């Protein structure tokens, strides 16, 4: 069986995830249960959603460093609206989503209109969103609203008495499915890939480059805001220090998922497995019990290194043929 070369990074990620799961199953009793794997999805639902947005940005050749702060800002705005101002959930959540989308669109507009570097613009966005969090509230606001806690604690059984998933996990899978469709089935998705391949060529092809560039950041902002909403389901609080460093986890997940950082190559499904791989590392360290949690960061760094070098090797291998 010969794999097409474009699927090799994706296959590498999935095999890595499988290998780690097998290792866990052999080493630790109780690891191989459906609930352990569903918990990966439940605990990392917000990361899946944020990383999906990040995948679009990276596919287009950009980067978005503001996502962690936008998640924090969303949690705190939501907590303020629901807890202190007693807004209805159905009004507060759409407002937060709009806010995140507009925030992303604004950064995208700056990047596109004034030819600024995405890195610096989203860095400023990161400062801004984090600062706005503290302007709203310095302290953590816990959410005790009844409708909210019910929503957060609802568990859906796969079958009666069987393993269960949370609403956020279902939401994450829905976002992923939508992203797969958008990336591979729509004109917008194809334009994103084209821009990542070569923005200049995309312009010459007459593709709507400017509009797509802005939309990509708007989409990432939307995903970050939605990630924030899901994060409040998980934490039941809003706080300016939530999700510090989340942007790095999201970028790491995207890279480990096999998306090329130079843009143009990658799959949404890879990102899901990137997130799951990060989750499995954490679960393994938790099951082991003797390793400290800071090993997580070192292992993630090592994985990033391996995947980046692999990407370089693939890029170098592809050039002569292309």
């Amino acid at each position: 069986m010969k794999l097409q070369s474009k699927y090799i990074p994706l296959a590498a990620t999935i095999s890595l995830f499988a290998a780690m799961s097998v290792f866990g199953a052999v080493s630790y009793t109780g690891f191989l249960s459906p609930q352990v794997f569903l918990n990966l999805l439940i605990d990392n639902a917000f990361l899946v959603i944020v990383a999906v947005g990040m995948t679009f940005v990276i596919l287009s050749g950009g980067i978005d460093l503001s996502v962690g702060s936008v998640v924090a800002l969303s949690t705190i705005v939501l907590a303020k609206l629901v807890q202190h101002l007693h807004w209805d959930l159905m009004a507060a959540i759409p407002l937060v989503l709009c806010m995140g989308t507009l925030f992303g669109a604004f950064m995208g507009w700056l990047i596109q209109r004034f030819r600024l570097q995405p890195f610096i613009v989203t860095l400023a966005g990161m400062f801004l969103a984090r600062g706005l969090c503290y302007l709203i509230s310095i302290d953590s606001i816990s959410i005790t609203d009844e409708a909210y806690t019910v929503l957060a604690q609802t568990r859906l059984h796969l079958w009666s008495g069987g393993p269960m998933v949370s609403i956020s996990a279902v939401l994450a899978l829905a976002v992923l499915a939508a992203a797969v469709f958008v990336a591979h089935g729509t004109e917008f998705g194809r334009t994103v890939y084209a821009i990542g391949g070569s923005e200049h060529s995309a312009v010459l092809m007459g593709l709507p480059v400017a509009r797509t560039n802005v939309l990509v950041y708007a989409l990432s902002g939307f995903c970050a805001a939605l990630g924030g909403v899901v994060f409040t389901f998980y934490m039941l609080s809003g706080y300016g220090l939530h999700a510090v460093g989340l942007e790095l986890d999201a970028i790491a997940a995207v890279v480990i998922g096999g998306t090329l950082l130079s843009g143009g190559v990658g799959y949404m499904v890879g990102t899901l497995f990137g997130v799951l791989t990060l989750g499995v590392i954490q679960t393994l360290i938790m099951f082991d019990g003797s390793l400290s949690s800071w090993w997580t960061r070192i292992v993630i760094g090592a994985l990033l290194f391996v995947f980046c070098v692999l990407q370089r090797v693939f890029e170098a291998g592809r050039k002569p043929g292309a």
Partner: protein
Amino acid sequence: MSNTPSLVKRVQAHPLLWPVVTLVLILMVNASLNPGFWMLQWRDGHLYGSVIDILNRAAPLMLVSLGMTLVIATRGIDISVGATVAISAAVAALMVGGKLVITDGVAQHVSRFPMWLAIVCALLTALACGLWNGVLVAKIGLQPIIATLILMVAGRGVAQLLTDGQIVTVYYPPYFFIGSGYLWGLPFALFIAGFVYLLMHLAVTRTALGLFIQAIGINPAAARVAGVRERLISICVYAFCGLTAGIAGLIISSNVKSADGNNAGNLLELDAILAVTLGGTLLTGGRFTLAGSMIGALIIQTLTSTIYSIGVPPEINLVVKAAVVFVVMLMQSAEFRRAVRGWVVRPAAGSHA
């Protein structure tokens, strides 16, 4: 008289004009809000005052910004400096450690290793961190932001691992001199920053190094064709950036008398990038100014001190910084300047249509 226009033009074209103007403006705001701002006092053999305090606190940022300037000049970026600071601080604090031993009724402070050895080891570790980044960028060819992201993610884990997740306290007073000692009435840390600046200034102006770095930043491929040893210089630049971060780590850990793997140098990389940009170095590489970065670091530290001193909640700091970054970014953008010119000119032209 005939000389005047050229002088005005020279001043207008000087790369340090805007950074200096910004700094002076912030200082003036400071002085108007705080009447004692410029007051200096001679106490216990050294100078006291807000200005001295700002200079002292700005020293680590100055050092990191200097290293970052060269990296950015070669079109790179190093987002791992905060982690390098944490690692170097952890190594130094662990090796100096120190305890109080009383022999014959005389209190003696004993360090675990000689202090010079601890400092050398910490700096070598930091150098190794930078070297690692440089090899990833120049030899393996990763994008700088990603290559340094690896160390940024893993570095804090390494620092935590070194300190076993604890905050390591230093009990060896001679070590405190680095961060809070005074020499000739001025903070010692400032001398370190000044010395490094002088060394770098000489290296880039008296040798061809500055030219090479600029050539790499403008066009790496062309520089290589022209015979510049692009890869070697890139590696050295990243290694040097790691070294400056290591020195900053020593100052920071000595100042707070401890090493905290989690918080030492947190967000320092962002402040350093901001300082470099404020100083007038182009993020697209090719044009850089070391003096500008020093001023940029001072601007950021003064801004922070201002925000603290006027009693605004420190959280606003981030919003102010964000606003400053947006303004500086837009001013650097040729498209923005063109657009502004368009907005100013168009109404006049459009009135005929």
